[in-house]
């Protein structure tokens, strides 16, 4: 993995790399009006870690996540999920990659309204025609505390419960990596804390890999590592963060 030479993003522990961005730029428009959403970014995300991507609005954090997750294409550079270079994949291959190897949690509107909670959780596997590992699914559901609500439809669930279903879906197929985009952005702080706590447990106890985009220092503090983005560049990173240290860094960025 000599490709991943840059210092930032290199883990202290020599764990496997779940996903990486190598020299990634994302440019909208061209010529004088070109906007560099991502500017020559190199970053890697280790397996079994909970990483937060932070940055102010317009810093490019969501774009980075979208590129990492195969939802968006890069202008330059390459994205690796495991050993797969996403730039070599067709639209269909990208779809299958998302389905089989990646999990998603969005800020809101995570669930298909016509499907029950359980059907939503197993949706990617159902789409793939795979039989879910029932023991694992049960364990996930059990851990998020959804046991008695799996046959409910999304409109019968509270916002927090809906996000738990979303997280369960992301984890149910045991993906190589889970991307979460402001997963607690629409929740009150107590409910948000529960979701974040569960995500941390999924990483620590169930050996999952999560990359979360957030602008909330409190949310980011649940992560093992925080990567800071500003103006499309990675400007800092932090291990074992606390809300205070994150806030300090953010303030420094603001200046």
């Amino acid at each position: 993995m000599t490709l991943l030479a840059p210092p930032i993003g290199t883990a202290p522990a020599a764990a496997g790399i779940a996903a990486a961005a190598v020299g990634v730029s994302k440019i909208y428009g061209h010529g004088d009006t070109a906007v560099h959403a991502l500017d020559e970014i190199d970053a890697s995300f280790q397996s079994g870690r909970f990483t937060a991507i932070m940055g102010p609005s317009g810093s490019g954090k969501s774009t980075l996540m979208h590129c990492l997750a195969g939802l968006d294409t890069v202008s330059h550079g390459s994205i690796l999920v495991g050993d797969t270079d996403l730039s070599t994949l067709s639209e269909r291959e990208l779809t299958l990659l998302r389905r089989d190897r990646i999990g998603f949690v969005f800020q809101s509107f995570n669930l298909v309204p016509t499907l029950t909670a359980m059907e939503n959780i197993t949706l990617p596997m159902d789409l793939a025609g795979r039989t879910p590992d029932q023991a694992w699914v049960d364990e996930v559901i059990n851990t998020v505390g959804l046991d008695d609500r799996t046959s409910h439809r999304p409109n019968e669930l509270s916002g927090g419960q809906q996000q738990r279903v979303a997280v369960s879906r992301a984890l149910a197929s045991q993906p190589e990596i889970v991307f979460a985009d402001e997963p607690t952005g629409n929740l009150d702080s107590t409910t948000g804390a529960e979701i974040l706590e569960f995500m941390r447990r999924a990483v620590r106890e169930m050996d999952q890999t999560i990359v979360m985009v957030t602008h909330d220092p409190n949310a980011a503090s649940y992560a093992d590592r925080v990567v800071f983005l500003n103006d499309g560049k990675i400007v800092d990173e932090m291990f074992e963060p606390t809300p205070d240290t994150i806030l300090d860094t953010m303030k420094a960025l603001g200046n």
Partner: protein
Amino acid sequence: MLRLTIKNLLDKKIRFALTTLAVVVGVAMVVGVFAMTDSLRSSFSQLAEDISEATPLTVRTSQEVGREIDRDPVPAAVDEVVRSIEGVEDTVPGVAAFNVVITDGAGEAILPTGPPTLGFSWTPLQFFITDGAVPAGSGEFAADSSTAADNDLQIGSTYVISGPIEQVEFELVGIFNFGAPDKHTTLGQTMAAFEIGVAQEFFGLEDRYSSIGVLLDPGTDTAEVQGRIQEAIGRDYEAVTDEVIEEETTDDINEVIDVFNIILLVFAFIIVFVSAFIINNTFQIVVAQRIRELGLLRAIGATGSQVRNSVIFEALLVGLFSTITGLVLGRFLAGGMRWMLNQGGFSLPTGPLELQPRTVVWAVVVGMGVTLLSSIIPARRARTISPIAAIQSDQQLAGASLRRRLVIGGVVTGIGFLLLLVGLFGSLDTSATLSLVGFGAFLVFIGMNTLAPSFARPAALLIGRPIARILGTPGQIARGNAARTPRRTASTAAALMIGLALVGMAGVVGSSLTKSFLNTLDDAVQSDYFIRSDSGGFDPSVGFSEEVAAEIEALPEFDTVVAYRFAIGSMRIEGSNHDVFTADFELVESHMDADIITGSLSDADAAFAIALHEDSAEDLGVVVGDTLDATFPDNGTDTLTVVAVYRDATIFGNWLIDNDTWERHFSRREIGFASATITGFSDDLPEAEQARLQAGAAEAIAPLGQQFPGVKMESRVEFRQSQQDQLNSFLIVITVLLGLSLVIALIGIANTLGLAIFERTREIGLIRAVGMTRWQLALTIFGEAVIVAIFGAILGLSLGVVFGVAVVIAIPDSVINAISVPYLTLLVYLVIAGFAGMLAALLPAFRAGRLNILDAISHE
């Protein structure tokens, strides 16, 4: 507000286009039908004027009973009388006949489907030679230019022509235009012209004329001469002016055009009705989708009425655009229809297509009216949107409650069925029956549309179950999508329901008609061979020469032949005119069994006998042995003895007389239909013997088939098949026309799906993000379309069966006496509807597949 509405429309071009398309097609149909029939009307009335103007007066037999086709000819002596009258310069006597069939060079009879085959005596007033010479002697004839051109008839060649009495060879000496020297106008009929003496002999009208044209001395007063002629010829004959002839001719032609016009208009209005459903549905959905935006308008100060008006204004724009486009397209459509008819054997005049003010008014009424009416309910809903809708995300429009829906829908459906039944079974005249049935069906459709949402959810879930099983997760999501908006699913399905109800009804009626026919053939018909004109149809003007029956009878393989004739309204008994059938009484009982209750046909003095159906006997209060005075088209009256009363009206209708009686009173000689029995044949014979006799008969009759190319001679098996085929092809034509409304319903499905997809953009984004492939997404949309289509098809076909059975019961037993529901055909329609649904989903599926996932997820 106004500018906002326009911007809104421009913003959603595809939706606008699809919504308009539905109205445009309806308007264009209406305009096209009117424009075409109007131009036909004016061309033919011009032709009628040109022709009748040639002779200021016409002398003919007065007629009180029967149709023009059965008007009695004028004795030649009358011509002598007219000729001698002061002021008459000259007379132009003429004869005309139906069923004068030319055989082409390849030995095929030239038989247009529908239009007649006519024979005339040559008249320089109407026929204009374009090539060759006027037919002057025996063995010569001239043909009209389009018949000659279409069938490659060559001047100098000899052709066999079948007349009412016999078949004769003639040499083609000339080709002529009808109506004008440089322009031939025809509705597709074939015309053969002969020297008058030749024509009289050939048509069996020796010493008689069909009518006598009168030319006046210059400067004489027409009315004066008319009076003198009338006085001289007496009341049995009449002298009429060219205006009367022109009017009669125009009326005759208009009668044909009117039928045509009404049939096409019915189809046009079905299409308009279906489009109304679609527009209504589209506006409903659009208002529901714009609920936040409309709420915002309310929040910033728009009044409820302004919001309502903006919806109505949008409808107005759609209506205006559709009307104008429909008018333009309709003119093209009229040209297209005319072209198609000309391809199909007609030679319609290609005059300018007229857009009469009436047509434009209809276009506006249909285009604007339908659109505005469809927008009333959505607009009223829009008015009730509260400003708070702008902030609340899950605002739902208040629709009618389920209970109200059930009550209103149930009542409307009930009234509809009631009107339908009153129309079908009440003894009303035709136009009242048709309007009641039409309005009843209309109410049933509206009522069902109101009811359908209350059971659309369970129905969608039920229909979706096998689809979910087959398609897996995409099918399951499709099933959920179809079930989650029952109102929308129901009204989209309702548009499809209408077309399929009509198709289903036609299927039931057609199948019952076929079954009735086969029942009659199997149970009541004993003869072994059936002889008919190849031009199809049971038109009284269709027939073949008497010679055919005589030739078959002369064959030793055949025992007896019975000839049948038919005339409409040609027998007056106690003041009313009746359709009349003829047969040979002496023989017919061994050919056809009309289920005679009392009396007998064969024992009677046939020449002055009548047999009638039990209903007619009861109406007149007569029994076997009583007498009835019957008046015929020649104004002659016979006292006929009732010799039999029968129960089955499917064969002879209600009134049957002998051919001898016919020949005394009708100048028409040709036979409409004949049946023959095979010598020695009986159902009791061993099968091998039966087969031997049948084979012998087939072999013996084959040369006659060659000799008379325009006549079909079919064994029982062949006849059965050909009649079934004929009914089937008729049914296919009706089904295809009704199927047009399905195309509009498909636009509705496409439209609704398109709107639903727009509404579910985020959901689609999510589902694609977590790994649904484009193909799976397409399957989801196909699945939903199929569920909606099948739901509509089941509703429609069920209604169609109910309608069809009601119609079959209402049609007199003389036409249909059996009920048959063609389950297999209905099943095929169901499958077709499913596939059609998928077709409608193609564009929405394609568009959904192209949605950018990221944009979709962040879509508001």
